[in-house]
């Protein structure tokens, strides 16, 4: 039963991912990661013997543990990548906010200067 479920999951993930890509909800950069994940699931589903072979090759007594360990490892890596990206976005966002604040002050100063000069020239021409 498990192989069927993972196989279906793989196909479902790739379909959902393609849908998000198609609707411009997902960056192609993330699409690649999820596509690889989906491929992995599909592979496990349609060729479940791979885990057993790999486990015996690596000397793992209980093959499902290998599958779970690999899955958890991938999830942790993905979460770390997410946090890295989040930090980078936060940094860019903060820089932008700061720059907006600075530009606003400059704009106000320029407006005041313009107002002052127009007032001065207006007076002199009158």
């Amino acid at each position, binding site marked *: 039963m498990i192989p069927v479920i993972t196989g279906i999951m793989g196909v479902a993930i790739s379909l959902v991912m393609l849908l998000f890509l198609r609707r411009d909800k997902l960056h192609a950069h993330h699409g690649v990661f999820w596509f690889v994940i989906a491929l992995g699931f599909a592979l496990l589903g349609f060729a479940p013997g791979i885990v057993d072979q790999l486990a015996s090759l690596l000397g793992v007594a209980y093959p499902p543990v290998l599958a779970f360990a690999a899955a958890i490892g991938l999830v942790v890596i993905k979460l770390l990548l997410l946090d890295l990206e989040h930090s980078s976005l936060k*940094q860019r966002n903060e820089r932008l906010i700061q720059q907006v*604040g*600075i530009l606003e002050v400059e704009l106000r100063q320029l407006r005041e200067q313009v107002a002052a000069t127009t007032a001065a020239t207006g007076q002199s021409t009158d």
Partner: protein
Amino acid sequence: MTALQDTATADALAGVAGLVVIPAFNEEDSIAEVVRSIILASGFPVLVVSDHSTDDTVAQARSAGAEVITLPVQLGPWGATQTGLRYASQRGYDVVLSMDADGQHLASDIAAVVRPLAEGEADVAIGAFTERGSALRKFAWVLLRWTSSLRLDDITSGFRAYGRAAVECLASEEATLLAYPDVGVLLLLQSRGLRVVDVPVTMRERHNGASRVFSSWFTVMLYMLQTLLLGLSKRPLQKITPQDSRQGARRKGDS
């Protein structure tokens, strides 16, 4: 109080193109008085960075004679301070002072804090007040110093003077992700070979009570863990001796 009270003050501040940056969040009660006292004592222009204040801070600061940057989104104390540093970097000030908006830093100490920079002895001067705080706070300082290998008396003081090189360093993107203006900032300065010195100052009681950073036990814990980890991760791998850092700073100044 009169402007430029004594000749020593005038000497220390003469010819220095300085800017005082004050990060402020809802400080309408104290900000006007703080701004006026600084302008009176130092003659420096004052830039208040309002960290998305919801009260009358902006109007109060403007009426007291400060230039005001209003952040459209709250960035926290360091984000607001860095905004001021970036402004100063773009305008080319020689010295940037950071001071708190709650009135705990005295304008009369500005000359003392600026002096090491004006005389070329340091790139950053910290107005240090080591007598304040509980035993726990002092223990926290020891811990922070030990993990980060920083050798300064008052790591958490927000009363500082930054020279041109330090301003450029702290205005950079690298410094943007820091959450608090203390250990991370000082380690970054140290890693660039900038000379940081302590200047003993006196501090007044806060106008309106508690510190923003230390509002509850949980935030204190979070702050300590985050800062300890940051200090540990950025601890210099090789020992930086004052001799090395002085040379480093001089080389930087020459180029």
